[in-house]
């Protein structure tokens, strides 16, 4: 295995230092390091962060390989600076058995670009009727610790309670897609001034907040961990802040698109902006940014959701919800959090690597950049700016809401256990 000597990188945005990567680990960090036989990488002006960890990725395999595969999604992830992604369970077949999660895990190993960590379904077939074999998935080669029916809310409160309790046995966590389904029948976009004008059925903020409020109470009652997916409203942030102050063991994530975009995007009826939960208002965006900054929201998670052209180039109401996120996530966080002064680079590392890895109990990721630690890291150029071209994305799908938008930052290199998966902005396999 070759070794790499990274010269002059600013670790977490600090002073320039050299990093020597050898045998999959960080062998040394210091000034003016030298190492015979090591490939030297000039990282002047680049920032080094621990490899990013995504808690929420839709890789579509098995079932919709026309939209994404584990391999193409892994490549998009590596190009985005990720070294681990959690593959959501709403595939076809659903990842609700040890067999399916092991298949996804193995495909990730074969692709070899990021660690693909399967999420197990909470209920059989995502039907919300009875628990899937959560223990079998936890004990499988995929070592599942995050369970989610994402795409669908575990809306039955008794079933949610049992799931929260049951996964305690193997230190698992239920990641809830918070959406009271009776309040979102036919919902197309955020319910407010714009939905009233556009004549699109509204998705009220209360449908998310009601479930989060219920679930934090349940989690406290049974002493379980709860993770809330893609928090999208100011009210949700308030409830989470209240729950954390009460000592509830709850964590939460926000997507890049909810940090940047609002329901104004729906005005042209372009379904690329249709997503679930929907884009909200300016006030929600501000509250989410501050919630992420003060730690009420623990993590940024992409909810990367590739869709085939025919599922997006159609009427808004018929279009599938979801948007790409892996390749632009870090740029959006730089744009909305760093350049606004809300978060420094150490904070970015915390919200995009350290905390998500901790929530998922993922060993070997989200570790400090220090000698002896696994060499999972990303180098980015914060000074670069570029315009997003969907045709140039590594994802098999093209449904990027950032098309034509100029964004800051560029992922120059990503290392997975000392092996470059991305060099000079190009995927290495």
């Amino acid at each position, binding site marked *: 295995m070759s070794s790499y000597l990274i010269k002059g990188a600013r670790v977490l945005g600090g002073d320039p230092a050299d990093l020597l990567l050898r045998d999959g680990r960080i062998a040394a960090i210091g000034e003016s390091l030298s190492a015979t036989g090591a490939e030297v990488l000039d990282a002047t002006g680049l920032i080094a962060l621990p490899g990013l960890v995504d808690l929420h990725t839709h890789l579509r395999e098995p079932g919709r390989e026309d939209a994404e595969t584990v391999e193409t999604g892994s490549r998009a992830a590596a190009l985005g600076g990720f070294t681990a992604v959690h593959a959501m369970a709403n595939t076809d077949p659903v990842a609700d058995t040890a067999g399916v999660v092991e298949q996804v895990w193995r495909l990730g190993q074969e692709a070899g670009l990021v660690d693909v960590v399967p999420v197990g379904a909470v209920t059989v077939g995502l039907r919300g009727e009875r628990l899937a074999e959560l223990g079998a998935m936890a004990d499988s080669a995929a070592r599942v610790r995050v369970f989610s029916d994402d795409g669908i809310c575990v809306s039955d409160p008794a079933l949610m309670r049992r799931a929260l309790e049951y996964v305690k046995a193997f230190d698992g966590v239920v990641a809830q897609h918070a959406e009271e389904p009776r309040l979102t029948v036919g919902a*197309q976009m955020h*319910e*407010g*001034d*714009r*939905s*009233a*004008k*556009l*004549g*699109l*059925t*509204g998705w*009220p903020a209360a449908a998310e907040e009601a479930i989060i409020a219920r679930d934090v109470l349940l989690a406290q009652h049974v002493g379980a961990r709860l993770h809330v997916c893609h928090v999208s409203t100011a009210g949700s942030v308030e409830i989470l802040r209240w729950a954390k102050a009460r000592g509830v063991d709850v964590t939460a994530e926000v997507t890049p698109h909810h940090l940047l975009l609002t329901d104004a995007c729906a005005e*042209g*009826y*372009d379904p690329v902006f249709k997503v679930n939960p929907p884009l909200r208002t300016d006030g929600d965006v501000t509250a989410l940014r501050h919630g992420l900054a003060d730690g009420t929201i623990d993590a940024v998670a992409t909810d990367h959701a590739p869709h085939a052209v*025919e599922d997006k*180039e*159609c*009427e*808004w*109401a*018929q279009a599938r919800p979801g948007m790409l996120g892996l390749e632009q996530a870090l740029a959006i966080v730089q744009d909305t959090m760093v350049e606004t002064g809300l978060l420094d680079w150490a904070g970015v590392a915390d919200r995009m690597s350290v905390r998500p890895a901790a929530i998922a109990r993922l060993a070997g990721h989200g570790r400090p950049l220090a000698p002896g630690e696994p060499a999972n890291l990303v180098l980015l150029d914060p000074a670069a700016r570029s315009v997003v071209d969907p045709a140039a994305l590594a994802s098999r799908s093209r449904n990027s809401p950032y098309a034509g938008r100029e964004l800051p930052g560029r992922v120059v290199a990503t290392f997975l256990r000392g092996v470059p998966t991305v060099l000079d902005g190009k995927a290495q396999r």
Partner: protein
Amino acid sequence: MKRHLLEAGDLDRVDATLVLDTAAQIEAALTGREVKKLPTLRGRTVVNLFYEDSTRTRISFELAAKRLSADVINFSAKGSSVSKGESLKDTALTLEAMGSDAIVIRHGASGAPHQLASWVRGSVVNAGDGTHEHPTQALLDAYTIRRRLGRLEGVRVAIVGDVLHSRVARSNVVLLHTLGAEVTLIAPPTLLPVGIGSWPAEVSYDLDAVLPKVDVVMMLRVQAERMTASFFPSAREYSRRYGLDARRMAVLGDEAIVMHPGPMNRGMEIAADVADSVRSTIVEQVGNGVSVRMAVLYLLLGGAPS
């Protein structure tokens, strides 16, 4: 005029007035003629692309185009490639390749005409999209009001019924406001959208309090199935609180008129004797619809009137 008519907001006051004036000129030009036809759009092709059954709107547009001597193609979703799963975009590009100059689209999905307009070079006219808008209905309503009352500025209009699901209400609120009328929306709170506070209209839950003060009452169709989703408890309670019957009609001012975009649920939102009264413009609205749609097609495809 913009190239498309997708929503009432596409028309500023000058454009909206131009449409109404043109409709009046066309009507005058055709009155008393044996052959009700103008040669203006000879050689042009208008496609009626209807994804929803709406015979009355389709016939109105068809008649409008034919009276302007345009070639008309009726393309309904039933029995065509659309029902076999062809996408809206493919259909649009096919129609354009066949040489359509304008596409009149009726669709159950809000925003479909906007998307269509982004894919084709010709003009797109929204003939009703989901619960969004129905701008030519609002134009014909404004035309009818102006014809009956002689003006629109300062006219007080009550729009009563299922505003939440009504494209007619959305278009009328915008257009009537543009033309200087004052709109009050009246409905049970369940049938008013969250966010209605941003509309240029007053809101009331009390029909009886509003009726004596208005010049125009526009009744919206209320579908009985709304009560199964608990928008209101029963058809009987709805019509008691929000229906227009002879008793309520009696409190209207002498000149006040009663409108309905059709099709009516007689006995639900409007009593039969009200619908058939001299105040009612319901039949007149249908005739005015053809004139207004002629004006729209003429202005979008033919240029200013000579």
